[in-house]
């Protein structure tokens, strides 16, 4: 429903701290990526990677500190958010219409994630990796300025990993900001590499 920003996207986290269930998950986290940056967030399970992405997305509120963002966002986390009974194409079209994306953008996203052959299969029949690709295609089709990808490489085969790498690089090169939360080291050149230590601080 929000309108698209014509200017460059921006994002800044200022001394962000967040408590979840009486536990300090993030503390003293500051981050100021510029347009075109890829931020790779690493850390063990439960160290707050997903929390950080949900904070940036505005789905959680900070306990202290501030987050400013400008630009249209897209999020791909462990929840697919595509209706199981619909075909991949129709389920993606629902969100693409919400994002005001064109049919070309939608088809390009399907092609980029190698989903053309699966386009008319109901979402519930997809395998783990195929579901992941569908959720990434939702982000691709949105043409959002800021991408928030939570463990996007999980379940992907090596060919799909390369496709995702290319998509992330292309989005950053065209002035977007991409945040990737992953447990493995980056497979691409990143501007900021952030290691969360699980004690709340960023190393």
């Amino acid at each position, binding site marked *: 429903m929000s309108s698209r920003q014509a200017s460059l996207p921006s994002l800044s986290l200022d001394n962000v701290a967040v408590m979840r269930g009486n536990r300090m998950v993030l503390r003293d986290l500051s981050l100021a990526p510029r347009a075109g940056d890829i931020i790779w967030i690493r850390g063990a399970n439960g160290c707050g990677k997903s929390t950080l992405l949900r904070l940036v997305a505005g789905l959680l509120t900070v306990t202290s500190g501030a987050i400013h963002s400008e630009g249209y966002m897209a999020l791909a986390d462990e929840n697919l958010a595509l209706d199981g009974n619909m075909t991949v194409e129709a389920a993606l079209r*629902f969100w693409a*219409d919400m994002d005001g994306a064109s049919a070309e953008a939608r088809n390009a996203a399907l092609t980029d994630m190698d989903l053309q052959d699966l386009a008319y299969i109901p979402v519930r029949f997809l395998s783990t990796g195929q579901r992941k690709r569908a959720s990434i295609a939702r982000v691709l089709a949105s043409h959002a300025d800021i991408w928030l990808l939570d463990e996007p490489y999980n379940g992907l085969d090596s060919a799909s990993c390369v496709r995702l790498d290319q998509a992330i690089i292309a989005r950053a090169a065209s002035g977007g900001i991409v945040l990737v939360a992953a447990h493995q080291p980056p497979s691409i050149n990143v501007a900021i590499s952030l290691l969360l230590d699980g004690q709340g601080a960023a190393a």
Partner: protein
Amino acid sequence: MRAFVALVGREVRLAWTGGGLWLPVVFYLSVATLFPFVTGPDKALLARTGGGILWIAALLATLLPIERLILPDRQSGVLDQLALRGWSDELVATAKIAGHIVAFALPLLLATVVSSALIGLPEAQLGILLLGLALALPALSGLSVMIAALTAGLSGASALGGLLLVPITIPLLIFGAGTLAEDPGNAMQLLAATSLVITALSPFAAGAALRAGRT
């Protein structure tokens, strides 16, 4: 506006394909079918009590689709995706209520015509019954979405839903049954007022519950 219509349409489609549309209707018609077996073929008795029974059946049918209204969307991340796109929780709740009115209230009204024939309700009463239910069903739809948002993810959500719904619907039931009396005028006005208040408040209550439930 187009996005709002798309979300309402999605609610209706999910109800149609997920069985949420037929379950209340089948339940409602079953009550109307079974009731004469209990009372026997006493036409006068059926005419006198049938309307009230249909009111109770409509209230209980409201409980059936509650569990599929919010929980699946929370689990699948649809609610997160809408919030990310700047939808307020109240607007999401309003779209869900509007979708539920189309997918639950309208089919139940149509089923009322069949049910009243099964019970043998006098024609004059059918009109009053339809009007009363048409006034009350938006409130019941709003309450369904509100309770679904409040109980989504809790264990024993359906039992809790029943406990929450029944007390709030008592005024609707009292005034609704009142419309079936000799002079339905006053009861109909009170029913309309009660229903209006509940319908108007439910998007805000449901929206607050959606926000509180986001983790």
